[in-house]
């Protein structure tokens, strides 16, 4: 028995060099670690514009306007955006809300979705107020807008108008800060 065991003993794997490598990688990964609470999934349909703004984003209800659809809190609305040709740049397309989705310039589904969030916010605010918090410190009514850089102002305005109707009146436009 004893003899057999000795026979199976093999040379140990020397992982010291791998360990060196990992330690160096670890340092670089830690350096580029992002603690930001707001996440953006970039894609062909969502390219954020550049800006020199230096205000860090805070968590709020997120409305994403992509070239093809609108998402509220990562849940897409039940319609896709229609495309029309940009009169200023022939061959390029701009997005718009399909005509059958418009009603009194407010996009119904977006409005309904935002209204739910506004109601939830309001409920929390009421509870906090009952516990003695001041209303102005509660700071709701804020919305994070992630809009593709090629979205025309007409659509941006419609989204903002709809949000305004649902009692969101503070807008944070999410932008990319170019690397220095």
């Amino acid at each position, binding site marked *: 028995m004893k003899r057999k065991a000795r026979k199976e003993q093999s040379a140990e794997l020397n*992982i010291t060099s791998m360990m060196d490598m990992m330690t160096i*990688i670890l340092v670089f990964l830690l350096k580029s670690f992002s603690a930001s609470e707001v996440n953006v999934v970039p894609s062909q349909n969502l390219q954020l514009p550049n800006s020199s*703004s230096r205000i860090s984003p805070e968590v709020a209800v997120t409305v994403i306007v992509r070239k093809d659809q609108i998402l509220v809190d990562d849940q897409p609305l039940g319609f896709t955006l229609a495309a029309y040709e940009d009169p200023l740049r022939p061959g390029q397309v*701009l997005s718009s809300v399909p005509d059958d989705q418009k009603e009194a310039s407010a996009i119904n589904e977006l409005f309904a979705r935002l209204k739910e969030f506004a109601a939830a916010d309001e409920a929390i605010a009421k509870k906090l107020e009952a516990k003695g918090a001041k209303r102005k410190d509660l700071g709701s009514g804020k919305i994070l807008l992630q809009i593709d850089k090629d979205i*025309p*102002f007409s659509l941006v305005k419609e989204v*903002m108008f709809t949000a305004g109707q649902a009692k969101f009146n503070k807008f944070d*436009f*999410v932008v990319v*800060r170019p690397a220095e």
Partner: protein
Amino acid sequence: MLKRRTIKEDPLDLVPIMNLVTILIPFLLAAIKSFELSVIDTTLPAISPDGAPAKVDENPPLSLKLNINQFGINIIGANKYIYGEAGPPPATEGAAKAMIPCKSSGLCRGVKDYDWPKLRKDLTMIKKKAIEDKRDSDNVIFMPERNIRYELIIAMMDTSRNGAQLLELDIKTIDEVFKKDKNGKEIVVENQKVKVPRKLFPNVVMAGAATVPGKK
């Protein structure tokens, strides 16, 4: 009776550390930031429900408006500061279709076609004169045309909010922008690293998208 063994020097067992690091790496890779995000904060003007007049400030506000279209950018509501008491020159045939026409002297197609430095300079001048006039001048109303892309609106916000920062000027006071040499000629301060970011018109208001304050 056990026979006392000779102490053999084992190499340091790094395997547990290795395990830890290997687990850490995917998590750190997931949290990597390839770009830095920031926000531009704006508010909607609230329409008061009972039509109550807004409170009258001691300093009359400057209602500056910026219109951007395919021909360029128009500054509205500050003619007195731009043209003086005489007012704007009469429209002539063949004149530029915008106050700040495109660089390419035609239609603007991209962000680079618009004359941002001129807009920044004009706005800085308006800000300076508005401060001298003791008028509230933190607000600017944006009135873009419907086909103007979001990218251009953001670029205009950048210019109107912190004009100095965009061009990386080293400007500590507005007077420095209009520094003059011995002959009274304006010196253009340009291409210096920014130290103090200047705010021109920090509050951006979007035209045509108002909020109705609901009943509590």
